[in-house]
């Protein structure tokens, strides 16, 4: 394929891609994401390929649409019949009954637990109906290995607009006006951060995509990386144009082999088509992206540690200032954003800031992705407008709590976040209200706890994680988290003593204020928030030698 030299060539190619993708075609869409693969989708895929051999049916492998609990997922187009938990033994029936006679196989349909009724099509599934899919709209709809699919769905149109119809400052202004806030944790306004980096003196600048996603229980980034890598790449090119960067890095954890494979394929395709590299789309703008693989340290998700790691140094954070926008990678001005932040950019540029800011709350605009695990009926990835209530998120999209148990709390933001108990279920989810409750938006990972979860034990679990992942550079985090874990372990073993809770609390407060980086500063959150909302459970362990949830020392 010849490199695209003008926006017109891109438009012409888009038309031919659209025709290729022809929506009325008989097609089986098979989810080939990590979740479905773990449940056997590749066997289903092989069997389907053999069975349809020679017939006029297309098989499309897609990335993860998010409904992981019900995998392997197979969707029959054009009717969009959504089959769940498909195994190899269903393959012939799908071919003969559904493809052959147009009949729906009821045993493969999702049954709505609220009314016991089977749901036939994808768009009617309650899981999707409760969502607003803006960043994830193509997850599950396209083959991430085919750039043509992304192109057909307006892919790289925003890039063409950014390069030809907007100035770099105009790009940044648009992102500022959209009020997009970083989706990697702290929620810093993305456009403002870009502006700092643009204004920083220097000809050589870098943009970085943080795809380290180290939170246990978080996999929103993975679903995007696997299902639609081009959207992230497009966002980075637009950002680089705004900031004036010539080189980009995607720092991705090596535990994500499928995401790495899909990203590599996408990067090569973008380069082949002149969308990445020298003279992008004939505009004279040069920008390239390289992958860097993480080696399994949670702290390397912290921006300064991440940059040290890219430089080949030990993954240890450093104090700020200087901020990355002043002195980042190799001392050059650098801008780092989360996967979801980058993936939000193309639609902001294409549809405008007002469109983006049309949903959300006063201070938190747009949609947010969440991954939900733990005691929940539909573990998986969802995208919802910011500002919906926790109740809507957990009970509508998440399908509620299994086995008739009652909801106890949700850990928001993983090991650096906090727990939110049942009395706050109607709180609108946005950055501010979560912080007020002692939790954080984090990277969108939720762990749901039911009545059988011990909150002290859960706090101990997260403390064990952060203690192990502490790099050990500063004293409060290196030894403070260790002593905190020792006390929690003692309490969970029924050996808590009078004064332990107070010591724990005091230590937690100091580790939070005194630590060098965000890891230490947030590591006490699970303890502090559970002490705030479930202090009685701690007291029962220490004073009555009793675990109210019957989890500890059975």
């Amino acid at each position, binding site marked *: 394929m010849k490199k695209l030299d003008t926006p017109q060539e891109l438009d012409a190619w888009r038309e031919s891609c659209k025709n290729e993708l022809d929506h009325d075609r008989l097609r089986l869409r098979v989810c080939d994401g990590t979740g479905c693969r773990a449940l056997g989708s590749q066997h289903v895929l092989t069997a389907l390929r053999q069975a349809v051999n020679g017939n006029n049916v297309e098989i499309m492998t897609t990335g993860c649409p998010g409904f992981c609990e019900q995998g392997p997922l197979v969707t029959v187009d054009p009717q969009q019949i959504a089959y769940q938990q498909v195994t190899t033994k269903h393959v012939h029936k799908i071919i003969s009954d559904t493809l052959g006679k147009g009949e729906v196989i009821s045993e493969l349909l999702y049954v709505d637990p609220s009314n016991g009724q089977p749901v036939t099509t994808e768009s009617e599934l309650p899981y999707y109906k409760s969502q607003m899919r803006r960043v994830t709209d193509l997850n599950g709809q396209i083959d991430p290995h085919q750039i043509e699919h992304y192109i057909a769905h307006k892919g790289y149109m925003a890039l063409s607009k950014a390069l030809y119809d907007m100035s770099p400052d105009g790009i940044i202004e648009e992102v500022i006006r959209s009020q997009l806030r970083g989706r990697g944790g702290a929620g810093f306004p993305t456009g403002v951060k870009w502006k700092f980096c643009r204004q920083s003196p220097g000809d050589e600048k870098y943009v970085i995509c943080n795809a380290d996603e180290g939170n246990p229980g978080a996999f929103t980034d993975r679903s995007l990386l696997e299902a639609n890598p081009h959207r992230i790449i497009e966002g980075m090119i637009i950002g680089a144009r705004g900031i004036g960067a010539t080189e980009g890095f995607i720092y991705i954890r090596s535990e994500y082999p499928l995401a790495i494979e899909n990203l590599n394929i996408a990067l090569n395709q973008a380069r082949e088509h002149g969308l990445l590299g020298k003279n992008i789309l004939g505009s004279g703008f040069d920008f390239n992206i390289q992958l860097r693989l993480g080696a399994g340290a949670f702290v390397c998700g912290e921006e300064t540690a991440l940059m040290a790691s890219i430089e080949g140094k030990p993954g240890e954070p450093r104090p700020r200032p200087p901020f990355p926008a002043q002195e980042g990678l190799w001392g050059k001005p650098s801008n780092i954003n989360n996967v979801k932040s980058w993936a939000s950019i193309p639609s902001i540029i294409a549809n405008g800031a007002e469109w983006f800011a049309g949903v959300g709350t006063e201070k938190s605009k747009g949609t947010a992705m969440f991954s939900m695990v733990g005691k929940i009926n539909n573990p998986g990835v969802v995208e919802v407008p910011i500002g919906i209530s926790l109740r809507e998120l957990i009970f509508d999209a998440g399908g509620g709590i299994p086995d008739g148990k009652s909801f106890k709390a949700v850990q928001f933001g993983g090991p650096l976040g906090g727990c939110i108990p049942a009395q706050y279920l109607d709180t609108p989810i946005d950055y501010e209200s979560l912080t007020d409750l002692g939790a954080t938006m984090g990277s969108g990972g939720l762990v749901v706890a039911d009545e059988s979860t011990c909150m002290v034990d859960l706090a101990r679990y997260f403390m064990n994680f952060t*203690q192990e992942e502490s790099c050990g550079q*500063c*004293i409060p985090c290196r030894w403070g988290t260790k002593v905190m874990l020792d006390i929690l372990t003692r309490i969970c073993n029924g050996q808590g003593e009078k004064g332990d809770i107070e010591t724990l609390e005091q230590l937690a407060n100091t580790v939070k204020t005194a630590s060098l980086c965000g890891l230490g500063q947030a590591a006490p959150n699970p303890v502090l928030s559970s002490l705030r909302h479930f202090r009685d459970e701690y007291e029962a362990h220490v004073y009555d030698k009793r675990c109210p949830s019957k989890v500890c020392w059975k």
Partner: protein
Amino acid sequence: MITLTINDKTIHTQVGRSILEVARDNAIWIPTLCYHEALKPYGGCRLCLVELETPRGSRVVSSCTFPAEDGMVVHTNTKTIQQSRQIVAQLLLARAGHVPFIRELAASVGVNDTPYTLPQDTCVLCARCVRACQEIVGMSAISIANRGSDRVVVPPFKISSADCIECTTCVLVCPTDAITLDDITDSSRTVHEWQSEYARGACRLCEYTLNGN
């Protein structure tokens, strides 16, 4: 020139200095451990924390790494700062309470004993030795291995490093005598911490040998 206040005292100074340096020039005491004049600031011990008054509320920062800025309002001895120093001192006592220097340091922030228990070691992981070897000597014959509370200072693979030029800078900058040169008059010397033996030779920088010839 910039003007800032530290503990309500108005101070004029030039740009490009850390809060710690400015404070020390003005006889304002801030405790430190990992800080060393000859080394780049590290921000690891967190004893030098100070509180800044900012339009967006107060902020706790390490004074060794934070640049002094015009109009800054700094407090070195607030309740928050005292409490965090004391807890850091208690953690240090739990680790190395047998070291006189650590006991003195803790006493200077009002701490004489500790409620915590940690595995004992003379090394408090301030990393002065590692940084000196890298920044001053330019060798990196020692480095930090492992992470979190398992951190240790070791030569690569815990064996004598060919990069060591026997300059003993690490010994000089170590505040707790965790690195000691034993048996200086012998023809080999043992660095106890690392259980490795070095044949004595001349320092490749200054050609000074330890027994003076």
